[in-house]
Structure formats: structure tokens, C-alpha cells
């Protein structure tokens, strides 16, 4: 009897082991063509661009992206349109795709770049991380693959954030833009006009405070959300071109326009624009509360749109207007905070550079069209005509896309651009500005100082 029990126990353990090992396989979402391409059949499917490897042996490329499930416009377009179409038109390029959710992707990406195990093609946010990878010679230069035909389809300036020392290391597919989301229900209920100028914004803040409502939502624990206000005011006062020059280390941050922008943030805090306890809240919390209709205004990126339009997440569907940050009466009032920061890069050590670059070029052209058709994400294509897609799109997306497309200049969020130490100091100082613990002059001076100290300055 004992022997029987022992054998049974052993068998159970072995079976469990096999089950665990099987489950732990961790197979990436590998996609193979529906049928194995015979070696001597030429590419028969008509394609917009001829496949790079014509009837040659199939090559495999590994691709890392952040779209695990069709949850929003980008992921749905990627999973349901872009990848299947690429595979159909490129039967001899086998795409081994590994998707990881956004936040987990950052960790995975960090670990891979430290270990040198990046795949052939990977998604990334330029320019801060891309710049360091380029400097470490880990990215493939793409210039030799970008002929004038290709470049004519790309929005001018949209590759700047992946261009270092005159060489291009990544391709972008979409622009993001910051928008001032206004809860029209709260505005109407309190008889406040949607602000189009900075003075009107201050008046709106006063009106909401008088009604006992916190005017602007601010997840100050995530300091980059505070920075948005200072960034857009810097654009308003001194123009995107100037700010971009400073971000590139070509000009000093110790500039009257920067001082003015920090002062504007201090003024907003003094006017009671934000919750006095904003420093205890993070972005996930505040975004949810905005969607529940708690705040009249929220200044964040266009990625909020899909959540605002989703009845399961938002109780203010159709009651939101998204506008560019109010004007100050200067020449830069149409400029935006935003730009092309999402992109794909190719590993310098890839075994199949032609296939990898072909993939990147193809998807960065196809994804934005497919994604915009589902709502939002302004493509970085110069031949993109928004009118073709505007019908059936949520008004929010169209509104943002319109003012973004007509902007005469843009800067990215500084924390995605600056090198590590200046970025850390900048974010620290943002929280100090909200706490009114630092002057605007010191903000500009300290930032300029650290840029010079870390050797990033070129002036």
C-alpha cells in the first residue's frame, strides 16, 4: 500500500513538473506566414513597396513592441491591420514579435540595453534614451536606406528626435500633442467661458475657486505633469525654436523667456489653480478622477482621448473640449507642446539589417494611417490628409489633430529630451515651484548651471 502511494506521489510530482515547464515556456507572440514560402516562387502578392528580399530564403527578425492587446487605437491598428498586412506582403520576412505592456516594457528595455541583448527592431521613446544608445554605437544608422522618395513622404522635422550628429537612428510614426481638456459641463454649470487667452484662464481659475471647485487637475507626485505648464509657457514666451536650441545644449537656459515661464507656473499656483495637496496624487489617480468629472480642466497629452471617449471609463463622454493651451498674445500662440517621440530603432548588430529596416520603414508608414482612422494619433507623414479620415472620428481627436497639424513649432516634454542629471534636477525643481520654494530666476539659473556642469552644453 505504501509503495502504491509512493509511486502515485512520484507520478503526480513528475506530471506537475511537466505542466509547470510547459507553462513556463513563455513563447513570444511569434507570427509565421500562413504557408511556408517555397524557395523558388517569386513574390506574387502585389505590394505598395516591393519586398526587400525577393524570393530569397526567409529571414527572421525579432521585434519588440508595447502593444499586447487591442485596447486603444494604436494597439488595435498594430495587431489587427499593420502586422497581418506586413506579413502578407513580405512572405520571406518572418516577424517574431514580443510585446510587453508599457511600464513593464521600460524595465525590460533598460535591462536589455544594459546587457546588450536588444533585438533586431525595438520600439523606443526618443530622444534621451535613443541619444545614449546612439552614442554607445548600439543603433544602426538608417540614412543609407532613406532615399529621397522615402523622405518626401515624411513630415519635415519628424525625424529630428532620432537624429544625432547628423545621422538618423530611428523612424517615427506619430506626433503627440498636449491639450487643455475642458469639462464643458462644469464650465456651463458655473457660467465660465472656455479660456482662449491666458487672462481668461486666470479668470476661469478665480471663478471655479469661488465656486469651491479645484480648477485644474494636477498629479504633482508625477513631476512631469507639472512641467507641462512651464514647458508650454516657455514656448509661448520665447518660441519652440529657442527652446529646442536650449534642449540641444546650443543655448543657455538662463533666459528671460524661461524665467517668465517658471514665473507663470508660480502665478498659477498662487492663483489657486491647483489642489493644495496635489503633491500626494499620481497621474493614474487624477486621470481617473478627471474622467469622473471632478475637475474642470486638465492639461495632458492626447493619449487621454481614448479613455475620455470610452463610456466604461469615463462619465463625461461628449462633455469634453480639447484646446491648445491659451494664448498670451504673442507670435508663438499656435505652437504646441508635443512632437514625434515614439519610434522604432534597429539594433546595430542585427543579422538582417535589410529586413529590419524594411520592417521599420513599412510599419511607420502604415501604422499612423490605420491608427488615426480609429481615432487620434497624429501621423508624421507629409502626405497625410486628415480630411480623408475625419468622418466618424471623435471630435476630440479631430480637434487636437487640427491645431497640432497647424502648429508652427513644437517642443517635446523636457524629461524625454534632457540627459539624466539635468532631467532629475528639472523635475525636482518643478515640485519646488508647486511648493513655491524656489524663485523663477533660480529655476532658470540652476538648470543652465547643471547643463554646463555635466558637459552637455555646447555654447
Amino acid at each position, binding site marked *: 500500500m505504501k509503495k502504491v502511494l509512493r509511486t502515485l506521489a512520484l507520478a503526480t510530482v513528475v506530471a506537475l513538473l511537466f505542466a509547470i515547464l510547459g507553462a513556463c515556456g513563455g513563447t513570444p507572440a511569434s507570427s509565421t506566414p500562413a504557408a511556408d514560402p517555397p524557395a523558388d516562387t517569386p513574390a506574387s502578392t502585389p505590394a505598395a513597396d516591393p519586398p526587400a528580399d525577393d524570393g530569397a530564403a526567409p529571414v527572421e527578425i525579432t521585434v519588440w513592441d508595447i502593444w499586447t492587446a487591442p485596447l486603444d487605437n494604436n494597439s488595435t491598428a498594430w495587431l489587427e491591420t499593420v502586422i497581418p498586412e506586413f506579413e502578407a506582403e513580405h512572405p520571406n520576412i518572418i516577424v517574431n514579435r514580443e510585446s510587453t505592456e508599457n511600464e513593464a516594457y521600460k524595465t525590460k528595455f533598460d535591462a536589455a540595453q544594459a546587457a*546588450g541583448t536588444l533585438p533586431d527592431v525595438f520600439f523606443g521613446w526618443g530622444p534621451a534614451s535613443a541619444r545614449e544608445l546612439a552614442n*554607445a554605437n548600439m543603433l544602426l544608422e538608417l540614412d543609407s536606406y532613406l532615399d529621397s522618395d522615402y523622405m518626401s513622404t515624411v513630415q519635415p522635422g519628424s525625424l529630428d528626435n532620432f537624429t544625432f550628429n547628423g545621422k538618423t537612428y530611428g523612424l517615427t510614426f506619430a506626433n503627440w500633442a498636449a491639450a487643455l481638456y475642458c469639462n464643458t459641463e462644469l464650465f456651463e454649470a458655473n457660467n465660465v467661458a472656455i479660456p482662449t487667452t491666458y487672462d481668461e484662464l486666470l479668470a476661469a481659475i478665480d471663478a471655479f475657486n469661488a465656486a469651491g471647485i479645484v480648477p485644474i487637475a494636477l498629479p504633482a*507626485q508625477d513631476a512631469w505633469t507639472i512641467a507641462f505648464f512651464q514647458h508650454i509657457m516657455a514656448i509661448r514666451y520665447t518660441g519652440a525654436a529657442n527652446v529646442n536650441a536650449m534642449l540641444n545644449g546650443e543655448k543657455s537656459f538662463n533666459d528671460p523667456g524661461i524665467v517668465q515661464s517658471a514665473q507663470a507656473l508660480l502665478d498659477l499656483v498662487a492663483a489657486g489653480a491647483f489642489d493644495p*495637496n496635489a503633491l500626494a496624487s499620481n497621474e493614474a489617480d487624477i486621470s481617473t478622477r478627471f474622467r469622473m468629472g471632478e475637475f474642470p480642466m486638465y492639461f495632458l497629452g492626447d493619449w487621454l482621448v481614448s479613455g475620455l471617449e470610452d463610456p466604461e471609463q469615463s462619465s463625461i463622454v461628449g462633455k469634453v473640449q480639447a484646446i491648445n493651451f491659451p494664448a498670451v498674445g504673442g507670435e508663438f500662440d499656435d505652437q504646441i507642446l508635443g512632437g514625434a517621440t515614439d519610434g522604432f530603432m534597429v539594433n546595430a548588430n542585427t543579422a538582417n539589417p535589410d529586413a529590419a529596416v524594411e520592417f521599420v520603414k513599412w510599419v511607420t508608414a502604415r501604422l499612423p494611417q490605420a491608427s488615426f482612422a480609429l481615432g487620434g494619433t497624429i501621423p508624421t507623414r507629409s502626405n497625410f490628409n486628415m480630411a480623408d479620415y475625419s468622418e466618424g472620428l471623435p471630435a476630440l481627436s479631430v480637434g487636437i489633430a487640427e491645431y497640432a497639424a497647424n502648429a508652427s513649432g513644437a517642443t517635446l516634454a523636457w524629461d524625454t529630451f534632457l540627459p539624466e542629471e539635468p532631467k*532629475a534636477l528639472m523635475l525636482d525643481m518643478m*515640485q*519646488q515651484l508647486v511648493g513655491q520654494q524656489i524663485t523663477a530666476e533660480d529655476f532658470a539659473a540652476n538648470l543652465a548651471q547643471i547643463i554646463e556642469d555635466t558637459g552637455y552644453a555646447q555654447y
Partner: protein
Amino acid sequence: MEKFLRNKKAIAVFSVPALLIYIGMIFIPIGFAIYYSFIEWNGRAGAERTFIGLENFVELFTNKMDYFVPALANAGILALLSLLIQLPVALLLALAIARKTKGEGFFRSVYFIPVIISTAVLGQLWQKIYHAQYGVLNDILRAIGLESWTRGWLADPKVVLGAVFFVMIWQYIGYHMLLMYSQMKTIPRSLYEAAEIDGASGFQVATRITIPLIKPMIKVCVTFSIIGCMKTFDLVWVLTKGGPFHTTEVPTTVMFDTIMSQHRYGAGSAMAIFIMLVCLVLTLLIMKFFKAEDYEY
């Protein structure tokens, strides 16, 4: 079978796999961390690694922007609070329930629950409790008429440290209580009976018999408590991310930010090694202080 287990060679052979895993998972990464702490590196495989000797360690104390020294101070305060509040409370609770009180099993489980709840969940829970507008804490204060005491518990730099530390102390009281309680259970009843016959009061029994006999476990609790305070991360990170204005930074949150956000692997590794050394030194000091004696019954 016994002959087999006593055979030293057999023991060695069977320990090798576990030993290899241990070396691979623990010692080799520590070795790498020590190596990284002597270089300057930005975490990209192809990037330059410059050897800078002990500069990273010196910078721990000279680089004010890292807030490492204030973080150490916070960890020290936390350790002190643990010794003065957490352990005594745990001891009192253990004494209270070790006397075959009614519901002994129930209280034992209830006090232990915070220990087994994931710290991330606890962080979320207390974030909601401490919320300035919707939080239960402010609601209770308003209800009992102490409106003036309400505040943004996690936003006000003056109270945030206390608020965070309260949760950390509270979480592990049950853990230390359980350790001490289990040791108390090993004390033979005959000692208590003898004391009762001699007419000792409850207080005398506790101070003259129970506490001295659980000294080895108290030593263990003190060690875990202090080391835990040096290493604590998740609760602080979920509640405040080290803010506002770096007031609630602890060494591990500074290290995490330095490596993950700022990609300064050299400085971050130096912090990690420093934390490890501090824990080692503290453990040795505690051992020396307690000079454990084993009691034979």
C-alpha cells in the same frame, strides 16, 4: 539510509546544485554590483565604463542632489521608532495572548494579517485612508470635532514622514509578535507554576521569567527590524515615491531612482553596496550587544 545521510561526500554532492544556484543568484550579482560601484556607467552595453575608484562612495555624502544622507537619516529614525515602538508593542501583545487567553488563536491571526498583505496593496489602502478629501482619517477627525487636525497627510512635508512611518511600523507588529509568542510557548509551564507558588505577580513573571528567556528571539526581532528598516522600499515607493520634496526618501528609493530613472549605474551600485555594508555592520553590532546565551531547561 542514516549511514547514507551521514556520509560527508553524499552531503556535499547533494548540496552542490543548491549551492550553485545560491552563488549564481546571490553572490555573482553582488560581485557585479561591487564592480559597478567602482565605475561610471550609464547602463548601455556599448557605452564607456570609466574606472573611478571610490569616487562613487565619496559622492554618496557630497552630492546633495542625491539626498542620500537625508535618506540614511530617515532610515535611522525609522530604526529608532521600530525599537522604541514596534518591538515593545509586539512584546506586550505577545505577552497578552500567550497566557491562554480566550480567542488566542483569533488574535494571533488578526494581528498577523497586515504582514501577509502585499505591501503594494497596503500602500494603496493607506493612500486612500490618508487622502485629503476622501480619506477615512480626515473623515474621522472631522466627525469627532478635530477639524483643525485634518490635512493632506501625504502632501504636507511636515507630517508625511510620520504618516509613512506609522504604516511601516504597524505592518510588522504582528510579525514580531508572532516570533516572540512562539518563543514564549517553548518556556516550560513548570517555571510559571513555580513562580505562582512563590507568589510572583504577573509583572514580575513577565520581567523576571518570560522576557529573559525569550532573549534569543528578541535578538532575532531586533536584527530583522533594523535590517528591514534599512532595506525598506515598496511601501515608501507606493505611498510617496520618496516625495514630497524628497522628505520621505529612504536609501533604497534613492538607489532605485538613481539607477532606473537616471541611469547612473555606478552611483546606484555604490548605494546598494553601502546599504549592504551598513546592514552587515549593524547585524554584527547587535550580535555583540546581545551576546546570546542559550538556556537549558
